[in-house]
C-alpha cells in the first residue's frame, strides 16, 4: 500500500510499504554500500536510525544466519528503490520483508531514493517518520518528537558474558557491540569477556586481560558518562587496547581530543583510507556521524595513523606512550572489504608482544 516518508524539513516522499505496517520515528541517513544490507540493518550502530540505500535493488540475497550483526535489527525504517522478492526455502530461510515484519520495522520502496539522497547530502541527517498519510498532523507529530540519545544504553549489554576460546584473553567493553568483532576474535581463538561499559577499572583488571577492545556503538559518544573516559585512561596503560568506531571516538575523548559532527555523515565502503605510516590505501566499511577534530589532537599524547583521503577525516589514532590505538572504520569486515581485518592482526601481534615482554 501507498505510504509516506516525511522529513523534518517538510519534504515528503511517496512509496509503497513493506515490512511492518508501523509508524516509526528516527534519524534518517543514507548508505552507499552495494552489498551487506542485512549486516547494516542489524548493526547496533544504526540504533534509532532510518536508512536509505543508494543501491537500487535490495533483498535479492535474502536473509542469512551468518550475516546478523545483532540478533535483531536496530533500525527504525528502511527506504529502498526496488524490493526484490525472493522465496523462503532451504537456501534462503528468511527474506527481508518477513524479517522486518517480525521485528515490527517498516520499510518503504519505489521511492526516488536518488532524489532523497541528493536532498540529504545537502541537509545532513534529520528526523523522519514513515506514515500512511502525509498530513499536517503527521508533520506536527514528527516535529514534536524528541529522539532518544540513549542509543548505547539501548544496545549495549547490561551484564557481563563470556565468549570462551583457548587463546589470549580479550576483554571487550560493550557500547553496542556488533557480531563481526566477536567473529574476528573467534578467528584468533581469543578467550573473550564482554563487559558492560559501566564496569569499573578493578572489575576489568581482576580478569587480567591480555588485550582490551572498546567496541563499536551507536550515537554520540559525548552522551556517555565521564566514568567511561576515566576507565579508558586507566585501561590504556594496563594492556594493549583497540578502540573501534564509537570506541575510537571515546579513546580520542579520553586523551583530550574533541569530536565534531561531520557536515555530511559518511556511510559506505568506497572511500580510500590511507595508513599514514606505509602510505598504503585500502577500503573499509565506514559509518560515522562524528569525526575526531584534527586540530584538537594533543600531538604529545596521540598521533594520527589513518586518514580518509576523500575528506581528510581522521580514521585512526595511536597513543604515544602505550600500545593503545583506535580506528574509526570497521575492521571486522561485516560487511565490507577484508583488507581492513589487518587491524586485528596488528592488535593480536601487539598482544603477543605485550605478553612476551610482561610475562
Amino acid at each position, binding site marked *: 500500500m501507498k505510504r509516506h516518508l516525511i522529513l523534518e524539513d517538510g519534504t515528503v*516522499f511517496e512509496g509503497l510499504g513493506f515490512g511492518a505496517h508501523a509508524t516509526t520515528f528516527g534519524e534518517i541517513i*543514507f548508505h552507499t554500500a552495494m552489498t551487506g544490507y542485512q549486516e547494516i540493518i542489524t548493526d547496533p550502530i544504526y540504533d534509532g536510525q532510518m536508512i536509505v540505500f543508494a543501491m537500487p*535493488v535490495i533483498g535479492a*540475497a535474502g536473509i542469512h544466519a551468518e550475516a546478523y550483526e545483532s540478533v535483531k535489527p536496530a533500525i527504525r525504517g528502511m527506504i529502498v528503490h526496488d524490493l*526484490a522478492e525472493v522465496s523462503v526455502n532451504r537456501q534462503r530461510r528468511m527474506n527481508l520483508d518477513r524479517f522486518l515484519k517480525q521485528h515490527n520495522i517498516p520499510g518503504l520502496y519505489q521511492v526516488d531514493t536518488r532524489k532523497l539522497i541528493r536532498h540529504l547530502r545537502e541537509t545532513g541527517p534529520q528526523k523522519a517518520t514513515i506514515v500512511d498519510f502525509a498530513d499536517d498532523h503527521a508533520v506536527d507529530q514528527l516535529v514534536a518528537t524528541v529522539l532518544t540519545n540513549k542509543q548505547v544504553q539501548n544496545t549495549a549489554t547490561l551484564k557481563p558474558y563470556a565468549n570462551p576460546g583457548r587463546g589470549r584473553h580479550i576483554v571487550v567493553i560493550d557500547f553496542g557491540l556488533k557480531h563481526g568483532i566477536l567473529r574476528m576474535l573467534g578467528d584468533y581463538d581469543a578467550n573473550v569477556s564482554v563487559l558492560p561499559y559501566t564496569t569499573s577499572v578493578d572489575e576489568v583488571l581482576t580478569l587480567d586481560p591480555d588485550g582490551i577492545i572498546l567496541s563499536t556503538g551507536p550515537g554520540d559518544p559525548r552522551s556517555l558518562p565521564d566514568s567511561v573516559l576515566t576507565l579508558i585512561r586507566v585501561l590504556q596503560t594496563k594492556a594493549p587496547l583497540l578502540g573501534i568506531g564509537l570506541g575510537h571516538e571515546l579513546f580520542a575523548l579520553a586523551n583530550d581530543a574533541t569530536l565534531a559532527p561531520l557536515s555530511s555523515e559518511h556511510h559506505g565502503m568506497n572511500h580510500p583510507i590511507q595508513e599514514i605510516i606505509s602510505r598504503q590505501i585500502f577500503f573499509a566499511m565506514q559509518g560515522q556521524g562524528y569525526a575526531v577534530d584534527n586540530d584538537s589532537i594533543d600531538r604529545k599524547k596521540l598521533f594520527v595513523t589513518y586518514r580518509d583521503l576523500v575528506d581528510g577525516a581522521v580514521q585512526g589514532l595511536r597513543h604515544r606512550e602505550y600500545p593503545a590505538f583506535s580506528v574509526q572504520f570497521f575492521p571486522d569486515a561485516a560487511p565490507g572489504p577484508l583488507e581492513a581485518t589487518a587491524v586485528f592482526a596488528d592488535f593480536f601481534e601487539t598482544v603477543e608482544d605485550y605478553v612476551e615482554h610482561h610475562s
Partner: protein
Amino acid sequence: MSNITANNVLFIGAGANDFGREAEYDAAIYQVMPELRGHGVNVYLIDENPYSLSLESLAATAIWKPLTVENIKAVIKQYQIDTVLPLFGGERALRLWSQTVQAWSHGDGPVPQTLGLTIDMLLRVNNVAVLTSMMADAGLPVITNHVAKAQEDANELLREIKLPLMVRALHPNQANTRQIVERLDEFETAVKSAKSQSMTQEIVISRAINGMKEISLEVLRDFRGNKMQIGASEDMDPIGIHTADSLSVSPTLTLSDQILEKMRFYAFQVADLLELRGVLHVQFAVDDLTNAIYIIKISPYIDQMASRMALVTGYPVMLVAINLAMGVALEEIVLSHDFGKKMAMMEPMMDHVTVKLPIFPFGELEQAGVSVNRQLNSIQKSVGSTIGFGRTFIEALEKAIRSAHFNNASFSPTNMSHSSDDALIQQLIHPEDNRVLLLVEAIKRGYEIDELAELTNIDEFFFYQLRHLLKLELEVEQQVESVEALRRAKKYGLSDGLLARFWRTNFKNIATLAHENHIEPTFKALEPSAGEFPENARQYYSTYEEENESLPVSEDTVLVIGSGAFRMGDAAAGGYATTIVLSELRRLQYHTVIMNNNASDATLLQNLADKQYLEPLEISDVMKVVALEKPIAIIVPGNRRKLIDALADLKQNVLILPKEKHVPNGPDDTETEFALNVFSDGHNIYPINITQHMTGELRIVPEIAQLPIQLAQTHLENPGVYQVIWYQDTSEWVKHVDVPDISHDTWLRPMPFGQMAFMSKVMQVQWLRMTVRALLARMTSQDSELLTNVNKLTLQADVAMIASDINYALHLQPTQMIDGTRFEIGVGIKYDEQIKI
C-alpha cells in the same frame, strides 16, 4: 608524477574485429593516447584495422600495417621505441608482444620496456598451465587439471576431487568433447571415451563447474601495491554458456557481501601475484550451495569487462589504467576537469542497474537462408551486445531488449506460444538466443519457480523478476488506456511502442496520454558516487521517478543517433562513423548529444560529446530526449528507415547519413564487383575513384575515375558517398575498367561505412567529416576545391582491404558458406608486395 622514464611509447592495437573482439580496444587506445602524451612522451600506434579510430587520432604517430612480429620489430627500430604498451590491445596484442620478445635477437638492440606487466609475467599470463600452477602455489582457488593414464589413477582422482567431474582427453585427436560426470556409474564410460579421443591415451580430470554462477570482478593495482575494485557483474546464465553470450547484470544482485568480499580478496591477491600496474578482470565460478569459489580466468589487460565497467559505473577506467601503467600512484592520479577530483581513488558505487544483452546473428543469417547451430554453449556465438540502464532489473532488462532487438522478428513473445511443452523443456535445458522469452513462457505455462531454477541453474531471483514482468504485462494489457497502468508500466521500462501494441493504438497516443497525465521521463545522472557527492555528470539514462537531473545542453545542439550494438555486416564500422560524426560536429562548434547503448566502441566516451544518453534507440526513446534537448538537427544512420520516417513525421530536422538497410552481398567466386565511387554534396556529384572487389578483397583501380554523363546530370539530394555498382566476369586485378552506361545492370547505393573508413585512411580524405559538413551546409571553398580534383589525387592502389579470417565454423557451425561481405565481422589490410610502402 610518473616513475617511468619513457620517450617513445608504442601501443600495439587489437587488429581486426572478431568474435569477442569489438572496438573496445580501439576505443580505449583512442581515449588514453592524449592522456599519455600529457606525460610528455611521443606516442606511436601500430594497428591494421581499417575501422580503427585511433589510427586517425592526432595524438599519435599511426602506423597502419598488418600486426606481425616483423612489422612490430621494424616499427620499434624505425621510431626508436623504448617502451611498449600491449595491455590495451587485448589478448592478441599481448600474445604478439610476447612473441616479439621471444623472437628478439642480439642484434636488435635492447628490448623496449613493457608497461603494466613485466616481461616475465607477460610470458606466464600467456601460458595457462604456468599461470594456473602459479596461482595454485599461492593458495588461490583455481580449478586444477589432473592428468591420468591408468584407470586406477583416474579412480584415485575420483576420490580426491569428488563429483561432479569433468573428463576430457589430453592431446585430443579431434575436437575435444568434455564430459560431465555427475553419477559414479558414469565415470568409467567417460574415462574410456576420453582415452579413446586422446592421441596419448591420457585424460584430464578436473572439478566440473558447469551450472555454477559466473561472476566477474574488475580491479586495479598501482605500483605501490594499492588495490581497488572497480565493479562486478553476475551472469544470469550459469557456467557452461560463454560469458559473452550470457545475460549479465551489474551490480551483482544475488550475492551476499561475504562471497563478494572473498572474491575481491582473491582478485587482489592475483593482482599482487602478477605485480600488475593496471586493471585486472577475474572470472569466478561460485557454487551457490556450498559457497565454494573458483577462479576460472584472469585477464590482466583491457577487455570487454573493463570497457563495460567504465560505461556502467562512470569511472574512467581507461584513463586511470594508463596512469597506473605509467607508474603513477593511485592517490596521485590527476584527472581532467570532466571528472571529480578524488574520483580515481574512490571505488565506484552504483545506484542504477544495468543489463547486458548479447546480440546473436541467427536472425539475419536465417533471413539469408543460412542456418546455424543456435544452441548456446562454451563457445561464443554472439557478435555484440547492448546495455540497458534502469533503476530496477526489469527496467534495465526491458531497455536492453529494446536496444538489442528493435528489428528482430525472431525475438517476439508470440513465437514462443507455439512451441510444445517438450520443446520448451528441451530449450530450457539447452538454451538458445531467445532464452529470456522462453523463461517468461515457462512461467506463463505454470512451471514452479524452484523447478525452473533447478532445471536451468538460474538464480530464483531472476524468475521472480520475470514473473513480476509477466504479471505487469498481463495487467496492463487488460487495463486499456488506464493512467495507473500506464504509470506502472513506465516505471518498469515498458516502451510506448509495446503499450501501443497492447492497446492497439500507436505510440503517439501513448505519449500523449502520458504527457497529459504528467507521466514524464526523469533522466538520472550516471556517476560513480551514487549520489554522495555533487557530480559534474554528462551521462544520463531515463527512468520514471520524481526528480529529473538533465538540463538542456544548449540552443544549437545536434543530436546523434548511435548505431547500437555490433552486428554482422557493416556495424563494426558503425561505431567508427558515429564517433567521427561527433568529432566533426564538435570541430564545427555545435553542441552535441549522443544516444547509444553499446559499451564496446568509442561512441559513449565522456569527452566526445557534451552529453550522452544511455538509451534504446526507438522512436519513443529518441523523442523523449528530443523533447528535453530540443536539438536543431538529428543525425541518423540511413539504415534506420522507420526511425527516420517517424522523426520526419514529427517535424524533426533529420539529417541522414546515407547507409543501406543491410550490407549488400559480396561478389561470388566467379565474378568481380566494380564500384565507381562518387561524392554528392547535395547539388553536384564528384567522382572519387573506382574500386574492384573480389571475394574477400577490395582494391582501388589505378586509374582516374570520370563521371558518366548520365550520372553528372543526376541529382542526389542527400549528401554522402555513393557507389555505382556493376559486375564483370573477371578474376584478375585490373588496371583499367570501362564504366558502363547507367542501366538496369548497374545500381546506385551509399558506400558502406566500412569502405568509407578504409577510403578515408587510404586517401587521407575524411569522407565522413565531409558528409557531415555537407549535411549541415557547412562546406568550405577548400572542400569544393578538393572535390573537384579528388579523382586526380595520387591513387594508392598498393593497399587492399581484406576480409579477416573469421572462424564461422567454430562459432556458428553454419550449414553453408557465410558471405563474408554481407556478414562481415572484421577486416584487415594487405600491402601489395611489389609496391614499396
